[in-house]
């Protein structure tokens, strides 16, 4: 699926993550900022990548600013940002 517009979801508050999605040409590229990047960087990227793949988004630039979000939060914020970026209004139940 093609990114129709740049979109954002989530906040920069503690236990949350801000996900920004932008049109890209070169696969799923993630730029992650996190205090726990050493411990959980790969895990966070993995959750974002898997969620985007489930939504059939193959080319996208991701800017993620993590403030200690749990996986379920990362997934929820990624889905919300993706649906905004794809201009979809109905939830993708199968991914949830």
């Amino acid at each position, binding site marked *: 699926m093609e990114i129709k517009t*740049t979109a954002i979801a989530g906040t920069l508050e503690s236990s949350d993550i801000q996900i920004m999605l932008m049109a890209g040409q070169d696969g799923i590229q993630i730029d992650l*900022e996190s205090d726990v990047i050493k411990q959980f960087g790969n895990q966070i990227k993995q959750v974002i990548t898997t969620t985007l793949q489930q939504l059939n988004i193959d080319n996208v630039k991701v800017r993620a600013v993590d403030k200690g979000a749990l996986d379920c939060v990362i997934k929820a914020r990624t889905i919300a940002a993706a649906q905004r970026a794809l201009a979809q209004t109905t939830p993708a139940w199968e991914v949830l």
Partner: protein
Amino acid sequence: MSSTIVELDLQRPAERAEWQQLLTRLGIHNFSHREVDQIDFTLGLYEDGELVGTGSAAGNILKYIGVCNQASEPGVRFNQIASALIDRLFQQRIFHMLVFTKAQYSASFQHVGFKELAHSDQAALLENGTPDITDFIQQIPRTTQQAEQRVAAIVMNANPFTNGHRYLVEQAAHANDVVYVLVVQTDASLFTTVERVQLVKAGTADLNNVIVISGGDYAVSYATFPAYFLDSPASAIEAQTTLDARIFKNHLAPALNITTRYLGSEPTSRTTAIYNDVLQRELAPTIAVKIIERKQVAAKPISARDVRQLIKTGNLTTLDQLVPLPTAQLIKQRLPQLQARIQKGMKINGN
């Protein structure tokens, strides 16, 4: 403890006073009209009825961000304000934003996803969102052998494009393989950005090694160099031009293999004179700075400001000596509109 973020209306005296008090306590003291009037919206963070944080935006530039960290974990309130500002700009479909801040706060902004474009001992400029400077640089046209060529750059507002600008471009075009002319993108001049770009292109069309592009947010824009557009103290001009020069040196020049920057000598404008000094200090020795004596007509340097004066008076008898044909044609065609813009308050004495 309850915390909420609301929009502040600075037109209302009570809110304005509370806002100004908070920022003053945090060490921000510049509340001049020329700064405050630029603001599009202001957010306030209230905790238990007290204003503890604020942030504003003017176009895509974040301003007047301040949080009180008393009785709060450091960063919490700042992150709340930053988050709300970014969300709000995205709702307005502004996906790219910049912030000019004191150097010591750069880390706080990087912590919430901003990338630093340049910093000096005093100040830093950061951006967030898309398209960013990498995207901007990527879309600039290049020649196929650019890495081996002599490449130069000129940044100009060209308000409007005169024979003086033309002379400067010619000098650079003769001495180099490729010349980039970066036209100031900020639309705050008598001639609109569309008109200025059009006149630079038309006025250099016969020079086939000249590439005319927009300076984007990165060369003499409201973000990098607001003092170019607003009358400002020398210290502010110095701080801003230092960052502007460093962005050019560290981002634009290496990507495009630019080794020379051309400037016109500046006998009259204080702001531009400081800018020229700072450029020489910052760019050398990596990038050569060539200052070309201004071209003169009747023993007087050609100045776009004088052209704007002619437009104001409507006496265009000397116009053809000062500007190339396309500029003269446009001025003659649009004289009533240009005069109307001046009447409506467009300043013509600045840059």
